[in-house]
């Protein structure tokens, strides 16, 4: 039991070190002034933003609308019963803007794009495409990892803001069928409780989540050695590890923000 715990701890630390190393190299490459492959890298970044961000708008919008509707109906009907109707906007701010917006967007990005990144890189390993890029002198960090990290971060920030807007406004408009609060009053309350720090915390979380998702999924994709059967295994691990990492980061940021 002790040996097993020790082995798992060492494996966990090795994994964390490898992911951190990959992340740092990608981060350094992001700000590298090198001209090499700029056009090609930009093409990959654009494609990643399109796939992770633009293509995900319908699913993110639908989930945000449903979540906003549920929270607004629940809070809008329950809070007045206990004399706390004035806290509706505060509840929205805390649940949607602080927590569920960034977190659920991260989960959607993990399910759609994280798995796609891991599978794509894994299949590239199996097909020797990664080896071919390396043989051509094309930096894997610059050509494969960094553009995905940059693309996912940009898409995550935009999607999270989009999620929050749809959940707050769209959710209310649908809930209006059931509620009696005028929209002007609701929006004024939201405007009152929302501060710059709320926007900042959302952006910080989405940047951290985007970075984590892209780096962990790239790490797992590039960890495929040679068999196609490894690709789904690594994808499963990538999903588990990114969800765990995002939850841990969410706790750290939230605790840090309130302390």
């Amino acid at each position: 039991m002790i040996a097993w715990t020790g082995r798992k701890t060492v494996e966990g630390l090795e994994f964390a070190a490898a992911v951190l190393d990959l992340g740092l190299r990608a981060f350094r490459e992001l700000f590298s002034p090198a001209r090499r492959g700029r056009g090609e890298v930009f093409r990959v970044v654009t494609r990643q933003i399109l796939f992770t961000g633009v293509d995900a708008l319908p699913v993110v919008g639908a989930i945000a609308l449903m979540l906003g509707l549920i929270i607004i109906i629940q809070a809008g009907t329950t809070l007045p019963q206990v004399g706390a109707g004035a806290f509706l906007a505060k509840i929205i701010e805390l649940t949607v803007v602080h927590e569920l917006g960034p977190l659920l967007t991260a989960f959607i990005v993990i399910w759609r794009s994280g798995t796609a990144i891991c599978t794509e890189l894994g299949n590239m390993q199996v097909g020797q495409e990664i080896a071919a890029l390396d043989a051509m002198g094309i930096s894997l960090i610059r050509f494969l990892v960094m553009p995905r990290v940059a693309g996912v971060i940009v898409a995550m920030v935009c999607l999270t803001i989009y999620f929050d807007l749809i959940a707050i406004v769209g959710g209310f408009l649908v809930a209006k069928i059931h509620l009696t609060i005028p929209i002007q009053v609701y929006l004024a309350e939201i405007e009152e409780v929302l501060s710059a720090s709320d926007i900042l915390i959302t952006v910080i979380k989405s940047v951290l989540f985007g970075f984590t998702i892209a780096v962990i999924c790239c790490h797992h994709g590039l960890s495929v050695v040679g068999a196609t059967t490894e690709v789904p295994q690594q994808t499963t691990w990538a999903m588990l590890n990114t969800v765990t990492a995002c939850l841990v980061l969410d706790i750290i940021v939230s605790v840090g923000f309130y302390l």
Partner: protein
Amino acid sequence: MSEAVITLDRVSASERDQTLVEDISFTVHRGEAVALVGSNASGKGLVLRLCAGLEAPASGTVRVLGADPARATEEQLLALRQRVGFVFAKPALISNMTVFNNVALPLRYHTVFPETEIRERVLARLTECGVDAFRDRMPADLMLGDARQAALARAMVMDPDILCVDEVLLGLDADELVRLRKILERYRRAGRPTIVATVNAPTSLLRAMDRLILLQDGRLVAACPPAEAPLLDDPMVQVFFGSQ
């Protein structure tokens, strides 16, 4: 004798914890065409990757174009690899790019040529390799032989000093083999590239080579001109060339 571009000195190397190459030494000179000849699992693929600087030896020294890949920094390695074209046994074309974009990739990544010049160079290589008709196709739509020719065009597009081709016969029919032989001969006449290829069966292509390096079980059996190889008094060589 011209300058040495590849030197392997008492090199041993392993793959997945298994020693596949043991104590091999040879030198390849600029402009020379060398075939690494041996049956499957003779270690010739690993030797080829050592020659291209894609693998580090477990012991011994490898020098490629004056650099020691085992001690080079990442930047030095990337620079070295621009001067070495490599064709893998699998075509290894990037699956989400057309054939044209695959061949253009090294030029777009490493150079600042305008797109018109890139187009010109890529089309010239595709035509030379006989796959210009497939330039707008995706790699998955190609037959193995055509995909390998496209991979050859990609390896040649940067005009490398050394061209390495793994399993040169793989996926080629008789016509394609003749075409490949002509491509390599024309390519050698046009410039000064060194060619190193692995071959696992007797073929007319061997006659286009300057020297054969015969390998068995990861060891060097002999190195000689193609005409002399079938005459060697070695059981492996005699079985390979069908004289036994």
